[in-house]
């Protein structure tokens, strides 16, 4: 791996964050099983910044996003921890206030533009309805706003497109419409759940450039969920890598994507096909993501990790954060001159480091129970 060490900088005092999530836990309870989808995640996000959440399917990234809009079924979901957006405490406000805030304070763009649009209404009717739902304006004014929004998201010949039904539009145009609708009430926080995954590479880049431009112009905060490291590099200011419902690495986009420290992020980067020699097999990560119904003790990535030892399964590794706010949850990371470093030779606790625990290392029973 490339161990580019960024220049050391002193910690700068940060302004009050716009979004603050503290120790968020989301559990789905059913008769068969209890699924722990999100297991204590915390992050801050300032106004005008883009946080990219990277993770595989089942890592809890979409569940985390939906929690910010309180979209989970009430009876079967247990949400713990704090979520604050602006001055609103998302976790405690009433349902009626939440309905008002959806769209105006927090808005969301979903992955599949076809299912996010109603096939029976024209695009214009759907956008105008959203505007009128939140703002007391006349039908004509709402329609004019819809036209303005289509121009904002650069839909060609917008007057004609307002009268079109969703099936008459291409995937890229539909996604632009969905973005226009999400922006219709000028949200302060935009959530985007894999908005470009279903699109062609050529259209994907158009949508990413568009989202980035609108986000900057409107000064919105944005949380963007993706499984594609290339997409994250394209849009993120900050990156959070999720695995089994936890943020296992966090930091400035370049720090995380170019010089990752957590073995999972490093392995993800190494396993991505990108100009490697054809004669060499890809460095695939063995095994499959953990079962959220029965999470292993300690580090969830340990069963798939090339650097795992018995010290990894004792407890969930504590976050190690450096001066640049680059954080990783791995017992093999250390602070060196104030910066985060990954050292495969380092052991998680002193006992193991001094070789006292060598017996435990060779005993699989111990590993499983620890």
């Amino acid at each position: 791996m490339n161990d580019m060490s960024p220049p050391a900088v002193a910690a700068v005092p940060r302004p009050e964050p716009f979004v603050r999530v503290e120790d968020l836990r989301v559990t789905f309870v059913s008769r068969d099983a209890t699924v722990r989808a999100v297991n204590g995640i915390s992050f801050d996000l300032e106004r005008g910044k883009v946080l990219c959440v990277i993770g595989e399917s089942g890592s809890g990234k979409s569940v985390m996003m939906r929690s910010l809009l309180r979209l989970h079924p009430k009876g079967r979901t247990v949400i713990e921890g704090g979520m604050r957006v602006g001055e609103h405490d998302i976790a405690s406000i009433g349902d009626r206030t939440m309905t008002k805030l959806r769209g105006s304070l927090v808005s969301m763009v979903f992955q599949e533009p076809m299912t996010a649009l109603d096939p029976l209404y024209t695009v214009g009717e759907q956008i105008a309805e959203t505007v009128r739902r939140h703002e007391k304006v006349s039908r004509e004014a709402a329609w004019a706003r819809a036209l303005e929004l289509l121009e904002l998201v650069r839909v060609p010949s917008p007057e004609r497109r307002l009268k079109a039904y969703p099936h008459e539009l291409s995937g890229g145009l539909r996604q632009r419409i969905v973005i226009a609708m999400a922006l219709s009430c000028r949200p302060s926080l935009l959530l985007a759940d894999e908005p470009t995954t279903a699109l062609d590479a050529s259209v994907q880049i158009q949508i990413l450039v568009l989202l980035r431009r609108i986000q900057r112009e409107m000064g919105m905060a944005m949380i963007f969920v993706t499984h594609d490291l290339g997409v994250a590099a394209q849009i993120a200011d900050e990156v959070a890598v999720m695995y089994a419902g936890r943020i296992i690495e966090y930091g400035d986009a370049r720090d995380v994507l170019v010089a990752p420290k957590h073995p999972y992020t490093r392995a993800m980067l190494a396993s991505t096909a990108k100009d490697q020699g054809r004669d060499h097999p890809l460095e695939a990560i063995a095994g499959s993501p953990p079962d959220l119904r029965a999470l292993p003790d300690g580090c969830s990535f340990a069963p798939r990790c090339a650097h795992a030892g018995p010290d990894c399964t004792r407890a969930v590794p504590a976050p190690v954060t450096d001066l640049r706010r680059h954080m990783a949850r791995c017992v093999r990371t250390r602070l060196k001159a104030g910066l985060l470093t990954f050292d495969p030779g380092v052991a998680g606790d002193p006992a193991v480091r001094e070789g006292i625990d060598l017996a435990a290392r060779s005993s699989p029973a111990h590993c499983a129970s620890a």
Partner: protein
Amino acid sequence: MIHPIAVAGGSHPSPDPRDRGGPAQPMLIVQGLKKSFPIRAGLLNRTVAEVRAVDDVSFVVVKGETLGIVGESGCGKSTLARLLMHLIPKDAGQLVLDGDPVGEARGVMLDELRRSLQMVFQDSASSLNPRLPIEQSIAYGPRVQGASGSSAKAQARSLMEKVGLNPSLFGQRYPHELSGGQKQRVNIARALALDPRLLILDEAVSALDKSVEAQVLNLLGVLKRQLNLTYIFISHDLHVVRYISDRVLVMYLGQVVEIGPVDAIYDDPKHPYTQALLACRLSMDPEARVEAAPLAGDPPSPVSPPPGCRFHTRCPFVEEICKTAAPVLGDVLALAPERHLAACHMVQPGSGHSRAPDRVGVH
């Protein structure tokens, strides 16, 4: 009609007992393949227009190679795969499988074609029968082709081992009990059950997570060497295509716009469409962001493709000649497969385009 062609460098296959045409005979020759879908409307359900999904496509697949096919959605790459498999009837064109024409007298018949040519689809869940345990799904093909129950079952179990699934653990499971990556392994095993020569992989890894995608790509590499396979690999992921392919074919609106060895295409793309498509690849470095989209808008409708060069509506180098005359790719069947060809007036000497070269023969 059938041209014996020198094998592309580096991928010389070992002699295979199933070989009929000899090692230099291409595995598959596709000539002038056409397919259009009618659009019916009105009271009498008359055909009002047609979508020319695959419009005069010719290419060669050399034995033992991986041919990558790239293009935007709607360019006809999946229709092409289905035409090769004879899942939909073609309108015109000819297929030659290892020296024998397909579907003609004294040629290969359809069941023989299906034995030699198998396909893995994108959606790993919907391509498996939800009512069959996966062992039976894999054994189904051999049973249909006449194998006994016990030998088909034994074969299914050995195939599961080949694709990295423990048969005693997974054999009796149903598709919904498997993860996406495991289902795609089952699909690969099922495609291999008839001992095919050529495997068509239509976006076979696109729906998988990155870490699982790498596992499946490695598996495909191992199987290709073990079983002496030839792949047609269709994908929109240009990084993956570069990793897995020996040669690449670029499609735009139903036509081949560029074909050549993978490094020639990626390092020195000739066609402006290929150049733009490659520029859409995302860098892993936030400092190397694409600030302006290389391709504006969506591809034009294949119902009424633009006259002349089909790419001229989005091409930055468009000139008068492009709007009137369609550029030709060159005779892909007559030339050696390692040649790099592009259907663009800018590479055709004397085409009338101001950027066209003066002399003949620089590719």
